[in-house]
């Protein structure tokens, strides 16, 4: 146990902090679901790229920063402390890129990785379908081999960034006769291919950003397949594993949310209410639990360990914690909670309601809390599997 940082790590933190202080945009960028927002975030990503900060977690040989986990955590903490913009190409840098690095050919790496780093290519994710949400292996989008191509027909949904992305990494069913898991292929789809149609979905909190993506006879080269045809399920599970390994430094964001609760309680005149104080303290404790858990995870990974199904515990904990933080905020506001952020009597910060409702979404995306509990109970605790109904 050692809670101190080395001299090199202190230097790295100072360097990152100085760079962020000098370069972080002072004004809030327009949201990334608008063309202006995408353009502004691209400029920021380019600045990060030029400084070598765009993908610290990628190996150097593939254009990344080759940073260790402690450095990644330090960068994550400083990035959040600086209030720097959200990452535009998160799906490429966090999911698609590491998948290409692990499973792609040299040719594929050359084709895709540099443009992910520079943000010349933006990526979206094609996993979920109307009939394949929690039951991802039930996906139905077909991919039929035709010469050198696959021909795609079907539909993806909840696809964020699809309006601006020029690539999608997708799971498709390439062999309708094989078993559920053995007939899935992982394929990269250019979004400008004829036959792709988008239908935007407005979210509960009013924002756009999601879409349904329809495929009608979409021809994609077989050279875009990642890994072997029919082995897409294991590739995709590795992809999701990359996502579950992230979050180092995220405690800074949640700690700030708890500090905001203290301010909010003062503003609402309930700073002396013992019930309010008790709840805020409970939230603070949970953030400390998350922080130490993540530091322990980083220690294990840095020592060459791996995380398997335990990753579900991290997702379940932070998403439930985040939801509780915002529920506490609502309780503090009381009857004023329902007021829009710009209502004359509103006490909430701008963007509060978007964040409140987003915290409710956190329990659903990237595997619902219920799916995570299934994974924890069956694959971590080893309890017997739920008997499955066999669908048609």
């Amino acid at each position, binding site marked *: *146990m*050692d*809670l*101190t*940082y080395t001299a090199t*790590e202190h230097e790295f933190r100072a360097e990152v902090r100085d760079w962020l202080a000098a370069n972080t945009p002072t004004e809030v960028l327009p949201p990334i679901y608008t063309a202006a927002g995408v353009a502004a975030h691209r400029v920021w990503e380019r600045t990060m790229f030029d400084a070598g900060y765009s993908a610290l977690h990628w190996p150097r040989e593939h254009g990344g920063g080759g940073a260790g986990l*402690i450095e990644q*955590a330090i960068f994550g903490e400083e990035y959040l402390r600086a209030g720097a913009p959200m990452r535009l190409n998160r799906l490429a840098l966090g999911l698609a890129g590491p998948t290409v690095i692990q499973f792609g050919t040299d040719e594929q790496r050359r084709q895709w990785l540099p443009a992910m780093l520079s943000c010349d290519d933006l990526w979206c994710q094609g996993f979920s379908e109307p009939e394949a949400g929690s039951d991802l292996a039930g996906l139905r989008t077909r991919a039929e081999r035709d010469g050198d191509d696959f021909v795609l027909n079907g539909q993806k949904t909840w696809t964020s960034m699809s309006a601006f992305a020029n690539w999608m990494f997708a799971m498709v069913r390439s062999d309708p006769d094989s078993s559920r898991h053995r007939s899935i292929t992982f394929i990269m789809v250019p979004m400008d291919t004829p036959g792709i149609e988008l239908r935007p979905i407005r979210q509960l909190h009013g924002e756009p950003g999601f879409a349904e993506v329809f495929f009608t006879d979409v021809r994609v080269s077989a050279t875009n397949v990642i890994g072997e045809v029919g082995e897409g399920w294991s590739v995709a599970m590795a992809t999701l594993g990359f996502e579950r390994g992230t979050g180092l430094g995220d405690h800074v964001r949640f*700690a700030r949310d*708890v*500090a905001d609760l*203290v301010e909010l*309680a003062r503003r609402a005149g309930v*700073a002396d209410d*013992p019930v309010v*104080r*008790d709840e*805020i*303290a*409970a939230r*603070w*404790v*949970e953030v*400390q*639990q*998350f922080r*130490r*858990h993540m*530091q*322990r995870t*980083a*220690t*294990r990974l840095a*020592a060459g360990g791996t995380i398997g199904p*335990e990753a579900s*515990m991290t997702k*379940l*904990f932070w998403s439930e914690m985040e939801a509780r933080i915002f529920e506490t905020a609502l309780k503090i506001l009381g009857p004023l909670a329902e007021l829009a952020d710009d209502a004359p009597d509103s006490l909430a910060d701008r963007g509060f309601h978007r964040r409140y409702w987003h915290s409710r979404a956190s329990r659903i995306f990237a595997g619902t809390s*219920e799916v*995570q*509990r*299934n994974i*924890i*109970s*069956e694959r*971590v*605790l*080893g*309890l*017997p*599997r*739920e*008997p499955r109904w066999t669908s048609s």
Partner: protein
Amino acid sequence: MDVELSDQQRELAAGAREFLSEQCPPSRVRTAWDEGHDPRLWSQLAEVGFLGVVVPEEHGGLGLGDLDLAVLLEEAGRVALPVPLLETAVAALTLLDAGSPEQCKRWLPGIAAGEVVATIGLPGQSLVVAAPDADLLVLARDGGLHAVEADRCELTPQPAFDASRRLATVSVDTGPDTSLTDDPAKLARFADRAAVAAAATLVGIAAHLVRESVAYVAQRRQFGRPIGSFQAIKYRLADAHLAVEFARPLTWVAAHQVGVSDAGDPEASAAASAAKVAASTAQATANEHALQCHGGIGFTWEHDLQMWLKRGKALELAYGTPAAHRARIADDLFTGTGSTR
């Protein structure tokens, strides 16, 4: 930055688990309920060095620190150890922290050798664990810390639902000769240490409750299938396991911080309170779900589950209730002294 046990601490945990599961099966906990303090178990703990884990080598102990103690106490919690290891160890740490060389020399070798049973009483705490068995009581009284011999104390036994707690209220005449210190920082560290030691024990109790429940629901069949295949059961145990796993690293960090920081360091105090809250909450979750998962069989006197259910509930509320620790954290958050930032 390294939030993990050392190889030596992992060996300590493994060794303690093997020793305690062998020497302290549930039957022995039950015996202690009927027969009181178990001097033979106490001697065995001394022989393997556990009673002197934090006592310096010059006084016959292992000379280890707060985190090592936390590791050992988690294992003690797993077997519902029916003797006051927690209290004796915190008393030893407090003598080291606040006692004179003479006071240390007087008590520490006896603690390490198993000849002295010690216990503790926090500020405002009237109930003292193992009071009828203790030779030494380290008590926060009259604004200071005191090391009091048993014969200067008047006890009123207070039977409890966990008979191995052996509680009593204690009245005592303190004087200059019993005084360890009046330093409020050291009083704070005394309470922090008790909270962290309780947290570590609670993690062990909760982990045991989850483990036993997982084993039970995997073999208990109803409706033609193991009840552990029902999501209603699974979700309870997933939540309990989550709570335990997320309480443990925080408890380790708090133990480490309380040990290496200056006495009364506000950041260490905040960590200690946080650990007690997290571990108490994890224990409460595991406690509720364990009995629900066992159903009627868990509510029988014969079933061993009750020993962990009762010890868990007792420790959940001892050494600072979760609400009291949260109130302390809230004071810090709202006055902004910086330790909770």
